[in-house]
Every structure is written in structure tokens, then in C-alpha cells.
């Protein structure tokens, strides 16, 4: 069965025969400005309100692209914000109302977004990113039309690779 999220071990959910005949997956759909970004649900640990973001700890202050921290499992993890072109922002727009906590390995980071929707039975047709559109650092692995809008499929490993330094993915406490 083709899994549109190559790095994820998420299992497709198929308790009922899907209408489209396609396998069903659990995904989280993020809105970041006019970008729709689809991630495997098992890579999203939680969806929080932006109000949960805490001020930077001293260890994180050296990186201007860390916008705050979010507590989880007794630690505080860095929070980032992209724009619709996957460029890291030094200041999050007011429209970023939600924060998804993403995990990569043993580490976590928060990603601010305008909205986050959890879809438990997604069965749309995902197309691989055409070869002509590949660049080395692109986080986009697939494309689809969802509710008549272009949606980019990605995974947390690809997003984490856009962060300035891997050591940023450490807790502040």
C-alpha cells in the first residue's frame, strides 16, 4: 500500500471500505497563510493554543528564529514559525493562533500555524512531487487538491531540516 508520507510509520486506517477505494490515513492539516500543509497525524503530538507559548529561556535567546517555548513532558521546547514559502520568521504574524507540537526522534519543536485540523479518515489522492520541482531542501513530498485548494504533503523530518541548527531541538530545562 502506497503511503504518502515516506518517513512516517503511521498506519492507514481502514475500518470501513473507503468510498473512493483509496487507503485512508490520519493526518493533520495546517494552514500557514495561504499554504495548506498536510502532516501524518502520528508526528503531531498535540495541538495547542498560541496562548500556551512561553517566553524564551536564556539558552534559546541566541537564535532569533526561536519565538518562544512550549512545555511538554516536563521540558520546554522551541517554537518556530514559517511563512507560506517555508521561510523561518523572526516574528510570528497575529494570524498564527495555534501551535502544533511535532516530534522528531526524541526531540520536539512547536510550529505556529493559523489553523490546525485533524482528519481521521483522509483518503484523497496524493501525487508525488514532480521531479522537475525538486530542490534539495524542499520539505514538500507530495501534492494534492483538498477542498479545491493545493495542499502540500510533508513530514516532520523534512520540516526539522529547515531549522537553523539541529541542537535547537533541545529542551531548555
Amino acid at each position, binding site marked *: 500500500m502506497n503511503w504518502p508520507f515516506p518517513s512516517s510509520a503511521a498506519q492507514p486506517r481502514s475500518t470501513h471500505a473507503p468510498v473512493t477505494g483509496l487507503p485512508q490515513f490520519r493526518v493533520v492539516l495546517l494552514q500557514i497563510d495561504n*499554504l495548506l500543509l498536510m502532516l501524518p497525524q502520528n508526528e503531531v503530538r498535540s495541538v495547542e493554543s498560541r496562548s500556551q507559548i512561553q517566553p524564551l529561556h536564556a539558552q534559546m535567546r541566541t537564535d532569533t528564529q526561536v519565538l518562544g517555548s512550549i512545555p511538554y513532558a516536563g521540558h520546554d521546547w522551541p517554537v518556530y514559525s514559517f511563512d*507560506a*514559502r*517555508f521561510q523561518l520568521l523572526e516574528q510570528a504574524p497575529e494570524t498564527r493562533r495555534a501551535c502544533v507540537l511535532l516530534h522528531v526522534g526524541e526531540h520536539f519543536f512547536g510550529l505556529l500555524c493559523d489553523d490546525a485540523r485533524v482528519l481521521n479518515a483522509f483518503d484523497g*489522492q496524493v*501525487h*508525488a*512531487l*514532480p*521531479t*522537475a*520541482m*525538486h*530542490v534539495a*531542501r*524542499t*520539505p*514538500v513530498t507530495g*501534492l*494534492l*487538491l483538498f477542498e479545491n485548494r*493545493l495542499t*502540500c504533503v510533508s513530514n516532520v523530518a523534512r520540516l526539522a531540516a529547515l531549522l537553523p541548527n539541529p541542537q535547537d531541538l533541545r529542551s531548555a530545562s
Partner: protein
Amino acid sequence: MNQAAAWILQVAPGLNVAIGLRELVQLIDGSDIYQVPMAPDYCSEVLFWQKRAVPVLDLHRRLQCSTPAGAKTGSTTILALLAYENLYTRAVEVGAVYLPTPPKKVIVNDNQASMPDAAQLAQWGRFAVSSFDNEGSIVPVLDLSRIFTAETAATLGKAGNMPPLYLNRLVA
């Protein structure tokens, strides 16, 4: 004497390119095109056609033309759907290019084969399999596989390493 049919596509004023007859799949209008973030500047748009995600390529940019574009990206009304073989997967895929004018069908004979000059070779040599003289202008025959699936110039080899001239891509 061999001859074959081909399509002449205008890339920019004074720059036409040729493709094989069967490489042109369909002409469509330019509606419902979507921008993809973090994609190459010459191929940052996609459309959906017959259950495929079709990359939309700006030939003018891909060929790094110094002359003004013949097609204004985003506002042109003609898109040509082209078939090509993916260099890596060997799958036959479909890509789209903007055209300022409809393609023109020509018949090309062996005696039209002509080598480009150094400037032309530097411009499009790495994307062409051959070239011919068409009404006094040298027209490259594009290798669509390289146009759409060769990611960097390094993978194409140095400009000037054109294969021997042949017309078998222009199959009638």
C-alpha cells in the same frame, strides 16, 4: 532522404525550439494553476490533469534566455502538455510549458541538419539532441527528459557535448 514531422514552439522572439510530433499531447488553457513553495524558479507551478500532477515549466527561464520572454508567465492562455520519459524512474510523464503562440507543425529533412554556433550551443546545447535550419534560423530539438527531469546542469554534462546529429526523435 529521411524526413520527419515536428512541432515548432516559440520560446521567445527569435528563439524557437522543436519537439517530436508525438511529444505534444494536448493544448489547454492556463486556468487552475497552483504555486508550489520552494520549487525551482523555472518550475514553480503545477496543474492537475487527468489525475496527474503536471509540472508547469517556464521554458524561457529553463533555457536561461537573455532575450525578453515570448510568454508572460501567469497570463498566457496556452499551455502545451508534453510527454517525456523521467530520467530517473523511466516512467512516461506529462509536463506543461507556456506558449505565447500555438505550435507550428513542420516537416524536417535530413539536409536541414545544422550545427549551432558557440553562443547557441552555450545557451541550449545541454538540453538539445540535435538542431536544424528552419527558414534561416537554427532550431534546437529539445530533449524533454532533460528539460523536465535533469535537476542541475552538472547532471547534463558540459554544454557542447551534444550527441551526433540525428532526427529519429522526430518520428512521423
